[in-house]
């Protein structure tokens, strides 16, 4: 019996040790930076950046393969956050500012297929089967996924109009240095 206990203990210790070593040597590197970058992205998996989803975009960002200005729905705020985290400088002033858009459903054309409702990752579309749909403008973040799946092309992306409350003075043009 002692031999059995001894051999099993020895096996346990040896296998445990091997597992421990393997965990160290063969560890899958999970980049904390990627996670951090992913948390900054909106997470709607809209794919406008050209990657499958936000996680893949974060990987590319961490490797330096993508520009921090890749996320259209995130806009300037996200670009600046990413640039700050990655320690890169981007001249956002030079970039053609992305005009913020939102989706509008042409109610004449909507057939109530609910495809857009299923596609919307922010639950911004209201409507039921065979009934007209509509978009909650404040919730829409302009990913345009709904417009792509609409079978009747009833969804247009429209510029968010500038309001008095959102307007602010432009940056003064200044040739001087100080």
């Amino acid at each position, binding site marked *: 019996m002692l031999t059995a206990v001894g051999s099993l203990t020895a096996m346990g210790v040896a296998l445990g040790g091997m597992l421990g070593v393997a965990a160290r040597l063969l560890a899958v590197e999970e980049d904390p930076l990627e996670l951090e970058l992913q948390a900054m992205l909106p*997470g709607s998996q809209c794919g406008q950046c050209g990657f499958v989803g936000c996680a893949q975009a974060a990987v590319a960002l961490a490797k330096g393969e993508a520009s921090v200005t890749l996320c259209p729905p995130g806009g300037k*705020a996200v670009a600046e956050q990413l640039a700050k985290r990655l320690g890169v400088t981007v*001249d956002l002033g030079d970039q053609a500012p992305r005009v913020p858009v939102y989706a509008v459903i042409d109610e004449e054309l909507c057939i109530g297929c609910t495809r857009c409702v299923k596609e919307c990752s922010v*639950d911004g579309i209201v409507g039921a089967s065979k009934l007209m749909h509509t978009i909650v403008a404040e919730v829409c973040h302009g990913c345009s996924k709904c417009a792509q799946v609409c079978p009747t092309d009833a969804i247009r992306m429209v510029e968010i109009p500038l309001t008095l409350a959102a307007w*602010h003075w432009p940056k003064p043009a*200044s040739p*001087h240095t*100080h």
Partner: protein
Amino acid sequence: MKLFPIRGGIHPEYRKELSGERAIEALPLPSRLYIPLQQHIGAPAEILVSEGDLVKKGQVIARRQGQISAHHHASTSGRVVEVTEIPAPHPSGLPQPTIVIEPDGRDEWVTLPEPIADPFAAAPEVIEERVAESGIVGMGGATFPSAVKLNLGIRHRIDTLLINGAECEPYLTCDDRLMREHAEAIIDGARIMAHTLGAPRIVVGIEENKPQALAAITVAASDFPNIDVAALPVKYPMGSERHLTLAITGLETPARKLTADLGVVVHNVATARAVHQAVRLGRPLIARVVTVSGGAMREPKNIEAPIGARVSDLIDFCGGFSQRPERIIQGGPMMGTPLPNLDVPVVKGTSGILALTAAEINERPADPCIRCGACVNICACGLTPVELAAHIRHDDLEGAAKLGLADCVSCGSCSWVCPSHIPLVHYFNYAKGALNARDREQRKTERTKTLVEANAARQERIAAQRAAARKPKAAPAANEVPS
């Protein structure tokens, strides 16, 4: 009365003599009135009338919505001819919904609410309600709904109500004239407001360059031992809420706090008069005194204009221009904003309309900074404008924010004093706006994220439920429970 010094400040040419001796005149009723839905800080009012409706003077035509908003009333009786979008009296010139009224000439009042017989026996809520129903907003230019400000007495212990009659902006004389001609109404309105706030003490602050106004207010206040009149040294920006509080009480308002946190609430003299009219006469705010002045104006005047009269109506009443104005400004020359055109209406916050000549605005292209430090010396908020502007020029808005950008009151003294004509305050106005825009974007992204997470969680739950529903089908007999 003991006063406290304020840091920095400037002494521009006041040029108040252009209109200071002109008594307030009423504007003849214009052919059309344009009443915008947004004349105040906060949410735009909700429209209550439609094309073709007949309205009476003082009738509510747009109702406040949300916590911070204001009612708007018809300034005279007539017919609503149109509800349309016209450029706002705002530097952007963006269109905004506006009610157009064609006066019928009868100037017939709607049935006004009963005057509050003894406001000092009334509950504060009653006065607040009346002020809100009367559409009163801060008339010094900030246009914050006054009823909300009178509410501050609930959460803060207010010991002083300051009535702002400093009128430190050059050219403007509307508050000066109001104090000379309607001192009793102002003092009565101030007493009503102090009662509402629960403030035992009232101080009226007036700059020394308005001796007649000082005398009139002193006489009107002489019966009330709790009212002091402070003759303030002439210095711009004495009329800023925070600086007035410092000069009179010696208390400096901390960053990101309100003067109410120090037990002080500040209201403009014109607001005090509007409160008097609302409470004692039941009259809503449908007119205001506007100073029309400037070197290019033929006959500068102080005009009591109905809300909604076009700027061009006021200019015509002053005999038009004596020479081509280089710029038309609403408000004062220091903090006012250029007007997009002369068809925009007078609104509740319009204190002045100035037609300035090229010599008066003295605009030149900016030269390099010579590091003289003048802007640092005169900054009434204790900031370093030169440094802030350098950060903003290089798009480092956070850097500017760390240096105290939020404490800047945009008084424009730094731009005024700069020998190189660097548009310092423009940088600050831009940066404040850009930072706000960024905050809004940030909030939107966060909201999107929350919604995405909620959506994903729901999808998962549905999938799990489906999976659970599928299982019993595989072995239906085992799970059957007799009901």
